[in-house]
Every structure is written in structure tokens, then in C-alpha cells.
């Protein structure tokens, strides 16, 4: 079985600068990290490997420094990696990004399972996973909460629907986007860091792709018109309740239920 996990390098803090002209994130000089949701996708792949045996590849799209997140996947136990990187990919929106990744994955050969985190903490769209599945021509399930069983030709998962949890079986090859909490991500290992220090991270650029039509990539391939990008305002919504202890406990309990914290 082969599993490919898509990961992304995102800004390490919430204090990000945005280029006012292009609406693109300024990444230079900003400390970056692995998109936190991707850690769950990586861990899911590692769990599949531990249970059934699998060959794991981590892929990312971004500038050369995005190699760091592939290296981190190596430190967690991944076997292979690949970076899709080309100046012509810069400024991609959701559509161009998912197309670029789909071309890269086709180049590597379609695996049995493609895993993505539910969304990224910089873009927040949660669309790249499903769009990627469409470009790859495979079925997908988003918001996967847990894996129930893995068979030879399919996987059974629970997916989080608004208001309900649905059980679904999907045949390979397929794409899953996983939710936070599916597994607790392991920490990167120093031993693996040392062992994989010399391991290559191949870079694939437009020249390696089957479709080399530049109008499908980067800003050219992005129909999204960004009017304005801004960090969201802090949500200061709050309520103040005044009442006796017992009443407040019930109220708090009801509220937490309503908000689905419990």
C-alpha cells in the first residue's frame, strides 16, 4: 500500500504581514512551521503503516525552504518526500494549487490513499483536499474523525457532518482530509533526524509535469480575484451571567453542549 500525505509550511505565528498589492502572504523572514492540521494527516498515515504496512510519501508545494516540512515528516517516520516548486507556481489560488499538486502526485504515481489535513491555518479554506481529489479523478471524504477499518480494497471511516457523524466506506484510490484529534501526532524523533539527514528531497518543477501549459499554474491559473486580505479581527463576543452556583453550572453545561464543546 502507498500513502501520500500533503503538507504545507505556514507562518509560525498568527502575526502575519500581507502584501497589500498582490494580497499574497509575506513569507520572507517569518518563522514558519508545519501546518498543524497536517500533523494529524501524517500521524494517520503512520498509524496505517504500523497496522498494515505501507510506504509513506510526504509532498508539499512551496518555495525551496518548504523542504523543512518534508524533513520533519522524515523525522516522524516517512519514507519518501517530494517538493513541487517553481517560480511559475507562485501566487496560486485554491484551484491552481490543487491542480499543481495533482500534477505532482500523478508524476509520482497515484497512491492508494492521499491524506490531507482538514485545512491550513493560513488559507483556512479547507478546499484544496477535495479539489485535489477532483483533479486526480478519485473519490474523497472530508472531515474524517476516525478510521474504523482498512480492508484490502477500501477503507471505512467516520466523517463529521454538521449535526451528525456519518459512516462511509470508500474504495482505493481515494483521498481523505482528516480532522484534528483523529490521532495524537507523534513528536519528531532526533534519532530519525540523524538517520535521514542525508536523505534527498526531490524537487519537481513545471518542466517535469505532464501538463506544462503555464496558464494553468500560479497567478495565471488562478481565477480567484482577491479584493482584500486582512487578518481577522479578534472575536471579543462574550456574555456575562450572574446567578447562583447551581444555576450557572447548568447554564454553562447547556451552553457548552450547544457550542458542541462537550
Amino acid at each position: 500500500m502507498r500513502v501520500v500525505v500533503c503538507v504545507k509550511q505556514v507562518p509560525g505565528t498568527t502575526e502575519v504581514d500581507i502584501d497589500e498589492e498582490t494580497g499574497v502572504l509575506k513569507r520572507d523572514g517569518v518563522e514558519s512551521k508545519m501546518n498543524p492540521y497536517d500533523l494529524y494527516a501524517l500521524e494517520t498515515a503512520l498509524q496505517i503503516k504500523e497496522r498494515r504496512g505501507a510506504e509513506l510519501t510526504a509532498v508539499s508545494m512551496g518555495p525551496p525552504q518548504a523542504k523543512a516540512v518534508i524533513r520533519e515528516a522524515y523525522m516522524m517516520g516517512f519514507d519518501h518526500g517530494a517538493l513541487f516548486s517553481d517560480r511559475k507556481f507562485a501566487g496560486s489560488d485554491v484551484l491552481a494549487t490543487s491542480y499543481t499538486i495533482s500534477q505532482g502526485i500523478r508524476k509520482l504515481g497515484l497512491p492508494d490513499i492521499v491524506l490531507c489535513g482538514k485545512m491550513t491555518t493560513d488559507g483556512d479554506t479547507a478546499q484544496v483536499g477535495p479539489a485535489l481529489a477532483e483533479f486526480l479523478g478519485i473519490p474523497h471524504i472530508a472531515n474524517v474523525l476516525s478510521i474504523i477499518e482498512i480492508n484490502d480494497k477500501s477503507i471505512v471511516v467516520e466523517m463529521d457532518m454538521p449535526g451528525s457523524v456519518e459512516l462511509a466506506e470508500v474504495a482505493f484510490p481515494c483521498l481523505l482530509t482528516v480532522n484534528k484529534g483523529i490521532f495524537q501526532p507523534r513528536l519528531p524523533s532526533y534519532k530519525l533526524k540523524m538517520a535521514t539527514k542525508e536523505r534527498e528531497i526531490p524537487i519537481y518543477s513545471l518542466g517535469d509535469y505532464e501538463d506544462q501549459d503555464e496558464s494553468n499554474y500560479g497567478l495565471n491559473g488562478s481565477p480567484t480575484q482577491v479584493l482584500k486580505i486582512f487578518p481577522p479581527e479578534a472575536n471579543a463576543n462574550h456574555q456575562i451571567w450572574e446567578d447562583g452556583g447551581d444555576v450557572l453550572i447548568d447554564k454553562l453545561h447547556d451552553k457548552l453542549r450547544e457550542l458542541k464543546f462537550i
Partner: protein
Amino acid sequence: MYSEVTQSDIDYVKKIVGSENVFIAEEISEDFCRDELAGLKKSPEMLVDVSSAEEVSAIMKYAYERKIPVVPRGSGTGLVGGSVAIHGGIMLNLSGMNNIIELDEENLTLTVEPGVLLMELSKYVEERDLFYPPDPGEKSATIGGNISTNAGGMRAVKYGVTRDYVRGLEVVMPNGDIVELGSKVVKNSSGYSLKDLIIGGEGTLGIVTKAILKLLPLPKKAISLLIPFPTLEMAIETVPLIIKSKIIPTAIEYMVRDVILSSEEFLGKTFPDKSADAYLLLKFDGNSTEEIEAAYDKVAQICLGAGAYDVLISNTAEREESIWSARGAFLEAIKASTTEMDECDVVVPRNRIAEFVKFSDSLQDKYNIRIRSFGHAGDGNLHIYILKDDLDEEEWKKRLGQVFEAMYSKSKELGGKVSGEHGIGFAKIPYLKESMGEAGMQLLKSIKAAFDPLFILNPGKIC
């Protein structure tokens, strides 16, 4: 020997602070009758919410004349009964004096009132890229309480303890005098360091009403290493090797799987690794990732050489949260796993920790009682909890006494001290006596008498 509080005393104090700030009898919440030490309960006769040094001074002056005992109190998170009014009298609640008075960026000092909570303090300074290093686990404790017990916390290995960060204090003496001890100065060779007697004085020598704290620039980055070992012994025996390497982590903590599992259950969160029986948790700070990586590389090699299964790297906020939130909940988690517990906060030289931990572990079988521990392996300060579970009261007291006796005498044998950071309070006096001897205790009493000749301030504590 002490006067009881009378109606005219109450009326007098009400005139000083306003009647809405004075509480008597059943108006006094049960919270003020104890601290976090189970088993010791006593209500003060009068509870007073104070809001200024002048109020504290006026009350002390009056109490001194009337010979009424006075107990100062912050959040009441102590573990040795230090803030319990065992002789009744007046309790001064200083937690309302919680203003941050001045941030002096030229002298890198912060002047605060004693009721500022540790979590408020660190948030305030860190938002301004500054750093108050003492980091005790109990973040809802007040800075006044931290000063009174000379609290230490997890960063003591590298940064030292509360005493190292107190430059000056405003103190109300038992007779009501207000004195300034120390100041913003960095050096001070002007007579006995009275400030340092107040620090760790557990509110028996004077009442801190203002503190000038020393700050550092905030280190820009921190990375933790979680290091799984086959046994606790192997984990702890690695600590002196790390210290010897001259690379100083900010924290070296140890933990065992059982405590991690309790914490998972308590928090409802999963810990990132449970493969091993024992762990060391190391934290490094610095100004760049490269600087920190260079430092931890050598330590990682030492740990692997000493038999660690691996060295796991925590380098993002999410990873740090998954580890340190569990670490922060250990005390509460252990507490939730039993009916009642008592603790031993001994400190031993760092190269004797392994021996002490092994010894205290062995007491479980010897006395047939459950004992759990975790702690600051890097500074030799252990937190060992003896758990009552389903023992009956008599048996519990008996076995607890035997276990304590064994642990404190072992600690003495290894060159250790009774308390690393929680203080002596009421509960640890017998062990302090054994440790200090007659001459030492006499010296403590003479110092107490010099500050408080009538013994009215927090009586029955320390000596």
C-alpha cells in the same frame, strides 16, 4: 497568651478599611480556613480585605498593641498550612492588592503589589518581550505568596528561584512600621540583607506590600525534548551527566508513565508518547533555533548514550502545549486519583536524586502505600505524593508518619533539605527541627524575635 478578637476590635478595624471589607464568623468563606494541605482547618476570627500598605500598617499597629495574632494571605495555594490562622486572630487578605505599579524599562524592573497572580505577571511582561523567570506550577498563586515561600519552579535549573528576582520590598513590620528593604539597585552591600529574610519568611517576619522584581529580556525561542527511557532509574541517572556537560537547559523534569496516564484522564487530552516507563523532559531557550539546536544536540547524544530509546523534539506551540499542559496538571491529576494526599518537597544535591527517587519508590512496598512522584530533576527538588486511597484515618496517619520519617531522614543523610520551594509552614516544623538541630532552631527563633518580639505575625509557623 494572645488576645481574642472582640467587638471593639472589629469596630476599630472597620473604621480603617470600611465595614464592607471585614468579615466575621459565618461570613468567612471556608476557603480562608485552609490552604491546599488537607487536614488542617481553622477559621480566623476576623477576615479583612486590605487595599493598601497604610491599611495593613494601621491594622498591624493596632493588633500589636492588642496582641492579636495576624496572618497574611494571598491565594491560599500553599501546601504546608503556612497561611492557615491556627491561632485564630485576624487574617489579612492581600489578594485585592493586585496592581502592577510600574514597569521600569531602563532598570528592567517591575514594581507590583503582592496580590498580582503569577499568571497575570508573566502575561504582562511577556507581552512586552520581557521575562520573569520563576515558574512554579501553580500559576494562580500570588507573587506575595511566591516571595514568602521563595518559590522556585521549573526554570530554576538555569534561572534560579524567586529570591534571585526580588530587588526590593516594601514591608509592614509587626508593629506597623512600613520599611523599604533593598531597592532597584543591582548590587547591594549595605548591611544585613533583610530583604532576603523576608523572602522565604512565610509571612512570619513582615508583610510584603510591594515588590520590585528584576526582569530579563524574553528569550525568543524555546524547544523541549521529551526523552523516553526504559526505567526511571536510567532517566534520573542521566541528569548529572547532562549537568556535567555544561549545557544548561531551562528545565529538567522527570515523569513516569503512570502519572502521565492520570494526567491524560484528568485533562481528557492525549500525551504525544506513552511508549516508555519513564521520561525526562528538557527545555532549552535561546534567541534562535540554530542556537538552541546546537545546544540540545550534545544533550541528545548524552541521553542516547545513557540508554534513552529516542529523543523527541517539541518545537511548535501545539507540541509544547501537548506536553506542558499535561506536566502542569500532574499535581491535580494525582490528587484526583485518590481520596487524600500529603506531599514531601525535599531537595537533595543533584547527583543524589536517583538514589532518593529509588528510595522513595521502595517505600511503597515497605509500608504498603501508594506513592507517586514527579519533579524538577535538574535542581534536585522532588515532589513526592503519598496517597491515602482507601486507608482508614488511623492507618493513614500512621503510615504517612512512617513514610515521612523515612524520607526526611534519607534526605538528611544525602545532604538534602526539608523543603525546596513549598516552605515549612505548620506541617513541616518537626522535620525542620530534626534537620536544623537545636542551635539552628534557636537562631531562627532569635531572628523571629528581632522582627516580631510579641510573636503575633503568623504564629506557629516555621519555628
